[in-house]
């Protein structure tokens, strides 16, 4: 019974340590991850729900496919992956430490045959002299050797960068550190969204689950601007924000410019420029009406969709307005409105009135010239709100990973043995990685080795 139990635990242990499990997990993670890139994640768009069959929808929902990266089975895969990493390290690290701290100082006859890099030197001096000269040689050309006397021979062992065998374990450990960072972030951090209308302030934001979360301070949006390139592509979305504590601006946090790629952080909470839009749809628009035969222009307030009657009986209606017309009318820029003008007894005419192009406005209309003077409607800025105390742990993990990969991929543990016997010495070399590069170094050393006169 006892042996059975032991063999069972050993089996489980071997299972978690096995490289086969690693390969299975890596390939499973790769394959299953594809699902979430094809199926929509999170809140499903109604069009998608309409097109998919109810059975499919039910099965996919049951399997967690619509939030698969947080589904029990995906998280389980990640847990088994972590267990695999930990088990492998526990199993192999002691061997590696032993390998580093207790290197093979004496090369047996059998071991010597396994080397592809070797060189022999004959000399006429005494063995003591030979040893001294070769110790000096190794120290100068490679690194200071450890000397062991064995059966009348001297075995000189020198090595470089033995510790780089730990590189791969640093990489494995770094993955666990990143996981820990992600867990801290999901437990202690939060993400949300808030919109602030120009000239107003907020003291709470909407969390992921839709509930209002207090900030503990106020954020005032002084102004929001959009700039465009001449091609019509957006150039800059800029919010000017001020942080208020007890209604007073916080020094250093007044009139701060926040653009995409330049967020604002206050008390560990960061605000990211995310979207924008026109606040209160029913705001007032201003239209200028100028008689063509001279006379002072008249400025008239209009609401979207509401008919305005002028003195001469002409009516007009503002259909829509924009603060940047470029995307609708290439070649033009700035605020503009589409208006429908109906002269008394005539058919309605629809055209665009610009703010920045009076000469274009003058080409349209008949007795009256219509221009757009802008709107009293305010814009709002949309900001992502995030706090993630785990992010530094994640960066620590990433740094460890880069260092670990650098060591594991680009450095190698190089070892050289010289067995000094009476009348001749044999040199052997080995590298843990990139044998070809080490071969060149070894050949260099070999050339000098052969020229030694003792």
């Amino acid at each position, binding site marked *: 019974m006892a042996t059975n139990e032991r063999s069972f635990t050993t089996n489980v242990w071997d299972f978690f340590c096995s*490289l*086969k499990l*690693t*390969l299975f997990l*890596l*390939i499973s*993670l*790769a394959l299953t*991850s*594809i699902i*979430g*890139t*094809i199926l929509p*994640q999170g809140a499903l768009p109604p069009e998608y729900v309409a097109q998919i069959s109810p059975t499919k929808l039910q099965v996919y929902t049951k399997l967690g496919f619509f939030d698969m*990266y947080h589904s029990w089975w995906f998280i389980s895969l990640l847990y088994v992956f972590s267990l695999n990493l930990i088990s492998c390290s526990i199993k192999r690290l002691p061997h590696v430490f032993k390998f580093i701290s207790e290197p093979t100082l004496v090369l047996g006859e059998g071991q010597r045959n396994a080397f592809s890099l070797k060189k022999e030197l004959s000399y006429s001096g005494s063995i003591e002299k030979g040893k001294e000269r070769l110790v000096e040689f190794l120290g100068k050309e490679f690194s200071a050797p450890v000397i062991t006397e064995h059966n009348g021979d001297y075995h000189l062992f020198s090595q470089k960068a033995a510790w780089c065998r730990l590189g791969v374990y640093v990489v494995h450990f770094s993955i666990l550190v990143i996981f820990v960072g*992600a867990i801290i972030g999901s437990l202690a951090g939060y*993400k949300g969204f808030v919109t602030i209308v120009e000239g107003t302030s907020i003291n709470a934001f909407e969390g992921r689950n839709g509930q209002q979360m207090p900030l503990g301070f106020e954020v005032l949006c002084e102004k929001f601007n959009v700039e465009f*390139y001449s*091609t019509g*592509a*957006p*150039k*800059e*979305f800029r919010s000017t924000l001020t942080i208020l504590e007890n209604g007073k601006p916080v020094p250093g946090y007044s009139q701060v410019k926040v*653009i*995409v*790629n330049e*967020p604002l952080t206050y008390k560990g909470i*960061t605000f*990211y*420029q*995310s979207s924008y839009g026109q606040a209160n749809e029913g705001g007032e628009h201003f239209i200028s009406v100028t008689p063509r035969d001279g006379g002072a222009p008249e400025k008239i307030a209009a609401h979207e969709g509401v008919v305005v009657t002028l003195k001469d009986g002409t009516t007009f209606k503002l259909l829509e307005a924009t603060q940047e017309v470029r995307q609708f009318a290439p070649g033009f820029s700035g605020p503009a409105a589409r208006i429908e003008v109906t002269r008394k007894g005539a058919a309605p005419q629809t055209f665009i009135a610009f703010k920045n192009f009076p000469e274009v406005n003058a080409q349209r209309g008949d007795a009256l010239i219509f221009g757009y003077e802008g709107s009293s409607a305010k814009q709002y800025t949309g900001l*992502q*709100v*995030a706090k*993630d105390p785990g*992010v530094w742990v*994640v*960066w620590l993990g*990433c740094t460890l*990973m*880069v260092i670990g*990969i*650098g060591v594991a*991929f*680009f450095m190698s543990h190089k070892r050289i043995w010289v067995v000094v016997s009476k009348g001749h010495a044999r040199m052997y070399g080995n590298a843990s990685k990139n044998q070809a590069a080490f071969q060149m170094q070894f050949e260099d050393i070999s050339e000098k080795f052969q020229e030694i006169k003792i």
Partner: protein
Amino acid sequence: MTSSMLFNITTFLYLISMIVFFAFLASKNKSLGLGGSFIAYTGLAVQTVAIALRWKESYDMGVGHAPMSNLYESIVFFSWTIILLFAYIDVRYKYRIVGAFVVPFALLGMAWAQLGMNTGIEPLVPALQSNWLLYHVITCFLGYAAFAVACGISIMYLIKTAIEGTDTSAQAGGLISMFPPLKVLDDLNYRSIMIGFPLLTLGIITGAAWANYAWGTYWSWDPKETWSLIVWFVYAAFLHARITKGWVGKRAAWLSVIGFAATIFCYLGVNLFLSGLHSYGGSKM
């Protein structure tokens, strides 16, 4: 001289280089091999000048930015890195014949970019106005190029095993006698991935850092992010497979080809078929 003219010359040179390499493959004439390499390097030099010139031209237009901001510019950069890595293998390991299987990837990229895409210089949209753009794109594409080279070498490996397996007489001469030995191809495949994997890792990390800086989340399971992780998993599997018995050689070559297919999907497929945060990489922009 404009950058777009130089890019056309580059494309033409890569075409000639590929043809000369194919002739080299068929004739085994060493001077053809030298010619193929020489033409490819000339192309690389012209392309380097063209990229620098395009960078300068963007400043002249007043929208100055590194030429890595859309699909066209990234494909051009991708081709450039492929030839650069080929040059490294050619000079370092003296296996010129690899060019016959690697130069076509660069040519394909350049031809598609020059013939099928809008080549105009566009100003940077707000999301891309960051120094992270440079670090992120350079590391990712150097990684992609290393995987492209590994894929070309793996195809050579698979062709060689297929022909040698069925036809013993081919061992004496024939087309594949120019190929490096299988052991060398396997080793070169491994080496290329040893270069690509750290670069991909850096690419993912710089991307995460940038995302965190710009959006407040270092990872949001956006399709591009997920696919880069899938590629990472595949090559991580490749690296671990090599230390298990029975996974060197043919299986490793297949994993390398699959890895590159996933890379290409991550790079192009995600932009063309899926939607997400990397939409500016699409060809319509």
